[in-house]
């Protein structure tokens, strides 16, 4: 028998081992839900799968009686639109700021301290300010997401830009490159996969800001819905919504990872 340290799971058992905890959690939930519902059929805390399925099919497959909208899809569309817009703005701003401060020492000296201070402001504390300035519409929610994750992305890209070996920059200059050419052909392409990594890492924070903004002032959105139905203790809606948000987050993350592998096959292959 090999030492535990050296035991490797096979491909198949690796998948199985990964699914095992999930299956266990599901099982525990189902048993607990069954027990509670057996004791009290009106219990709202741990709805059964059938109850949750009913609630979601009501919201996703039937038009709302008052507005005629399919609430689930409207919520999903609104939330994704806000999140993606906010993240896109943050990624663009972060890339430009990070590239400039990371590659041009004069820029870095001018803006790095400011960037550090800005990144320390808790974005949620700014939410009232955003509501006052931009009103309660879409803009303030998108702005919160953008403001919340831009400093993180900018600082990450700045650090990545500084990590690119100086030999490459010297080499480009000995081939005749000027500052702009070095930035566009040497630094920028190498920063793109790192930008995707930074976006993946900041998506969690993005969801946090989105749901917070929607909970406080909104008329639709996944976060809005969860906080709305909380008043009726509608766990049969909340649990599927949370699961749906998790699934969306997972798909976004995997999509970005796939893009990164596909577009930048040289990324993460060690220093050359």
């Amino acid at each position, binding site marked *: 028998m090999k030492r535990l340290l050296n035991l490797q799971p096979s491909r198949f058992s690796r998948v199985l081992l990964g699914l095992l905890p999930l299956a266990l959690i599901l099982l525990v939930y189902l048993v607990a839900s069954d027990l509670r519902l057996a004791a009290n059929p009106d219990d709202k805390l741990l709805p059964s799968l059938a109850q949750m399925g009913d609630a979601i099919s009501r919201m996703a497959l039937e038009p709302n009686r008052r507005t005629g909208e399919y609430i689930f899809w409207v919520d999903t569309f609104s939330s994704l639109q806000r999140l993606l817009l906010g993240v896109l703005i943050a990624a663009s701003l972060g890339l430009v700021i990070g590239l400039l401060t990371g590659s041009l020492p004069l820029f870095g000296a001018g803006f790095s301290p400011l960037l550090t201070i800005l990144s320390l402001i808790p974005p949620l504390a700014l939410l009232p300010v955003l509501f006052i300035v931009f009103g309660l519409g879409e803009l303030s929610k998108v702005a919160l997401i953008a403001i919340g994750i831009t400093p993180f992305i900018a600082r990450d890209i700045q650090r990545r830009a500084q990590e690119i070996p100086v030999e490459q920059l010297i080499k480009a200059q*000995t081939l005749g490159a000027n500052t702009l050419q070095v930035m566009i052909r040497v630094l920028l392409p190498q920063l793109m996969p790192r930008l995707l990594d930074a976006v993946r890492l900041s998506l969690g924070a993005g969801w946090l800001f989105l749901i917070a903004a929607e909970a406080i002032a909104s008329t639709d959105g996944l976060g809005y819905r969860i906080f709305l139905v909380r008043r009726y203790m509608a766990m049969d809606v909340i649990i599927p919504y949370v699961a749906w948000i998790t699934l969306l987050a997972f798909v976004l993350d995997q999509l970005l990872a796939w893009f990164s592998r596909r577009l930048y096959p040289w*990324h993460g*292959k060690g220093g050359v």
Partner: protein
Amino acid sequence: MLEARNLWKRYGDKVVLERISVSVQEGEFVTLVGTSGCGKSTFLKLLLGTETASEGQLLLDGQPVRDEPDSDRGIVFQQYSVFPHMTVLDNVMAARAFARRGLTGYLFGQARREAQGAAMELLHKVGLGHALKLYPHQLSGGMRQRLAIAQALLAKPRILLLDEPFGALDPGIRADMHQLVLELWQSHQLTVFMVTHDLKEGFYLGTRLWVFDKLRHDPQAPDAYGAGITYDLPVGKSDRQTLQAIQADLKEPQHDIQN
């Protein structure tokens, strides 16, 4: 073409190079050897323009060398010398793209086809004709250095600087690389400066050997004096005894104090 006049380099109190006065003709192949920390790499950086002399002058055709890298001086480092995000062909074509006064450093149309032709010809010459579409991380160390050399050559530098280019390679591959560098040096009529750890490499490759070592030594203050060029030999005419003498010189324990 290149002349150093009483060159000094200090970092704070630490003197790295002192009183260096040499001149080099066009077409010479100079190898720089010495113990680590003896200043040979610093001298190369002065040539490259990433460091400036504390005192004295370094002249290229009578003009002080520019204090930033430019296309007069090509360089091959031991590593990180090629762009990891470009294929082999793109790496070499980038030399043409950067040579044009464009804003972005990308080539289009006719200029692109021309650069592609020139790059492919050179890549075939250095033995990378079969690897045009590969990325640097897919190449072996020796192939990567061939690529770095091809890239530097396409920019047509007046001086080619090699900073321990073969330090990380196996001996067999190193011999192939020596062959390649000598061929390219002759066919492109380059002036080459090569820093190397390996004294034998310096002794048999090239036309001129410089040994960097301290001329004066103060045991109480090892940084008080810098290194100078202790041997300046035409390589063709030197013999085994000189090699052994230099070897013995460089092995003296006093030199081990250095970083």
